[in-house]
């Protein structure tokens, strides 16, 4: 059996016939060749496969591609415009938020979900929000700093926009 799905990924529409058992992460990586989304534990524990589905962080190893039919998806590739880095990406670079880098796409996507709801998170908010993302290099300390960097930068940009508008 195959099922026709329509998804909008990083602003581009796709129509594909997929087997119902195709995991969303496989569809993204193997069909769309968006390999920035990683498969870590494959048991919904580690968060490396985190993407946004209709604006909410989701573990794409625990979702079927058919479940995403009609949804708007953002992956790490779609977070910025491809020219400038997203403040989170910049934060991870500036604050040494990655060592091997395997967990980074998931960390950034989960952190982006947090910053949508809480633009000024404290350290414990960040650690709590990243509970579902594992870094086996154990670089959590700098990951927290990277998210704080991004939050400050995004707030400064917002403030600038307000001042320009005023």
């Amino acid at each position, binding site marked *: *059996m195959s099922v026709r799905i329509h998804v909008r990924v990083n602003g581009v529409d796709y129509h594909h016939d997929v087997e119902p058992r195709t995991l969303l992460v496989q569809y993204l990586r193997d069909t769309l060749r968006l390999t920035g989304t990683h498969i870590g534990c494959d*048991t*919904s524990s580690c968060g490396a496969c985190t993407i946004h589905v209709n604006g909410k962080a989701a573990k794409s190893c*625990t979702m079927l591609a058919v479940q995403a039919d009609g949804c708007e998806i953002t992956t790490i590739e779609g977070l910025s415009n491809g020219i400038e880095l997203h403040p989170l990406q910049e934060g991870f670079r500036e604050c040494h938020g990655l060592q091997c880098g395997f967990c980074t796409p998931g960390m950034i996507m989960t952190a982006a979900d947090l910053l949508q709801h809480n633009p000024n998170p404290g350290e414990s908010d960040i650690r709590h929000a990243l509970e*579902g993302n594992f870094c086996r290099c154990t670089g959590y300390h700098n990951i927290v700093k990277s998210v704080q960097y991004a939050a400050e930068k995004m707030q400064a940009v917002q403030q600038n926009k307000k001042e320009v508008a005023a």
Partner: protein
Amino acid sequence: MIPVAFDYQKAGSVDEAIAALSSGDSKILAGGHSLLPAMKLRLNQPAKLIDISRIEALKGIREEGGEIVIGAGTTHGDIATSELIRNKLSFFAEAAALIGDVQVRNYGTIGGSLAHADPAADWPALVLAADAGIEVKGSGGLRKIAATDFFTGFFSTALGENEIITAIRVPIPAAGTKMNYQKFSQPASRFAIVGCAAMRSPDGKTRIAFTGVSENAFRATAAENALSGQPVSDASIGSAADLALAGVNVLGDHFASSEYRQHLARVYLAKALNAVS
């Protein structure tokens, strides 16, 4: 890991889902956060999945005739942030915020968790302590199963083969009732190694439920009776713990031995009771 091949049907209504269930070896797919991991491990190999995640009638939280009604398809995340739940059923919001992680809470549903009946899931303790009713629908229509009759064993419930949970109906606690949920989480999955939910009304009527401790979540009725109307003290908590665990087959596994889990159950009962007294 990829599940064994299966057919897929997106149900547009509860009745459509029930009709599809009757056609054979099928499973209901809601958030999928219990079912899909089991299917990936090939612990479960249904021939067909019926996706109910788009049925709007199964979602949302409302107040109706002295009850809080939580649609079975409501996510843990929506329960954790609901104003109505925070105001009238605060321990549901607290417990919801402790489930898994943000990604899991965005998709996992209360109905899915109850139907799956994992012995370490949080919701069973909550619905038991709140004396909720589980509203289910099958080809014979709607019926309500008391939470106390719902959990029948290891991953087993009173849900009929062709029935779907439609809502959780929780009587609104009397004003001044205190409620609390305490859990010792497994650090990776955040399932409860031990979870204890307690509720105590101003007249001292007490309800206590455990999850994670045994094959299925249960009410500690003897302990409730001993505490109801009586003051909560170290001594009364100690004897309540003895009563709560008497005759219970306490699980032991590689996370926690039976002896350790028993110890945790006493400690988490004390935490929950102190919080509601």
